[in-house]
């Protein structure tokens, strides 16, 4: 098991938003984290990055307890996190954004390798490599954010709402890209609101509601599950 989140609670100040959640991701697996707005999806990814601390429970990565590892030391372990709403560095160029993605020594060593690989996957980024990130379109920025995450040579790529605001064509490209990434043995844990889309591409899914896990399982088992529909559509 690559990522193993066990029974965590998360509080913002005194306000609990995650209750006793357990999630795991295996090597080379694509896992979807589903749930309506405010159900705590981003909070869980942020906890795995230690931007938010968890109470109780534990988080293991590669069989090592990482609950106390500071955020900036986690990329080195193999965790890349593409934050909600892209968060590229607006006043830096595409190329500068990408090279900052390869910060830890191992990734730096591979910088030119990774770059040529990334440019093959996202040809547009090569064409625009000297453009300021803030002048890129929303979809291009999303590609940049994902590419920047890949530059850290992750074993686990966490992506928060990758498809938000993408046109159907670009969305299709991105799905293909994700499938390729996974086929290389990298795991993906992604957050998505569109249940059908998410379950059509993921191996497994977890459904959150108000900070609690409602149901999880293989995509095929979830896709027409009544419980899942109820979470998203109400009664």
């Amino acid at each position, binding site marked *: 098991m690559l990522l193993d989140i066990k029974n965590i609670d998360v509080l913002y100040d005194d306000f609990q938003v995650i209750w006793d959640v357990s999630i795991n991701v295996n090597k080379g697996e694509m896992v979807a984290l589903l749930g309506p707005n405010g159900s705590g999806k981003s909070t869980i990814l942020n906890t795995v*990055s230690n931007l938010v601390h968890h109470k109780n429970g534990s988080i293991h990565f590669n069989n090592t307890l990482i609950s106390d590892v500071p955020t*900036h030391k986690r*990329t080195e372990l193999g965790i890349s996190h593409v934050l909600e709403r892209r*968060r*590229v560095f607006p*006043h*830096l160029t595409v190329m500068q954004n990408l090279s*900052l993605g390869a910060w830890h020594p191992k990734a730096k060593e591979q910088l030119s390798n990774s770059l040529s690989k990334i440019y093959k996957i996202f040809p547009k980024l090569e064409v625009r490599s000297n453009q300021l990130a803030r002048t890129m379109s929303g979809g291009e920025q999303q590609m940049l954010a994902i590419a920047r995450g890949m530059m*850290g040579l992750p074993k686990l790529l966490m992506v928060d709402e990758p498809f938000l605001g993408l046109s159907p064509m670009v969305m299709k490209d991105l799905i293909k890209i994700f499938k390729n990434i996974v086929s290389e043995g990298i795991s993906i844990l992604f957050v998505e609101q569109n249940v059908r889309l998410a379950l059509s591409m993921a191996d497994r899914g977890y459904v959150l509601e108000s900070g609690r896990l409602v149901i999880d399982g293989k995509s095929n088992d979830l896709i027409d599950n009544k419980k899942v529909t109820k979470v998203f559509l109400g009664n």
Partner: protein
Amino acid sequence: MTSEIILQAIVTGLMMGLIYALIAAGLSLIFGLMEIVNFAHGEHLMLSMFSSFWLWSLFGLDPIFSIPITILLMAFCGVITHYFLIRYILKAKMLIQICATFGLSIFIRSIAQLLWTPDFRNVDKPLLEGRLEIGSVFIGQPQLVASLVCLVAFIGLYLFVTKTETGLALQATAQDRHAAEILGIPSNKMFAIGWAIGLGCVGVAGGMMANYFFIFTDVGINFALFAFVAVALGGFGSIIGCLYAGIIIGLVESLGGLLIDPSFKLLYVFAIYLLVVIYRPQGLFGRY
């Protein structure tokens, strides 16, 4: 009034402006990085002048030679300022942050007065003395060297921030701290580096000015005011803006003094500041 006098004022203003620019760049770098205004910037300048003075007075080191030591001392001072004060107030409310650095300024000045009394001091017979006469314009040698050194330091700072890996990481941290942290860039280390460089800039300016300026515990106050104006004028967080703003302020100060009345120098500079705040609140090169 002859054109020679005006030319003289322009040269004087330019030289002063380059020094203002470097002081402001230090302030701007720190602000851009963590949105904290260093209200003790003037006191840090004062410390760097005293560093140069004491190295001369106790060890006979001329300011020209002690400048690397002064820079290192100030950089170290920046790191400990971050470590013992700033890192505790990063998430605090703005008012608390203001009180913290403003409190620091009073603290430093009081200690300095206690230790060194408010007397005026100066470095006697520094190596850099006298003035050049070019055409009809007189240029003080220490002033000229100080402004050139500040310009070189400024260019170095600019290249460092825009071209080196650490510089890019500083910019990334300034633009989105969490996004940078998640890539592996430790913000706390970046903040410490920012303070070291920010006060290092002040170290260059103060160390060079020790050659020809009176050194006393309140010497930094006006410089800090000008630096604040320069940062606002250049655009918060923009380093290159500081260069233009510093030069504008230097010129306004010296030409205003010449053409109107030298006793109102501060007034001219603040008039410019008000104009900017009213018509271009983001400053000349500001992003916000």
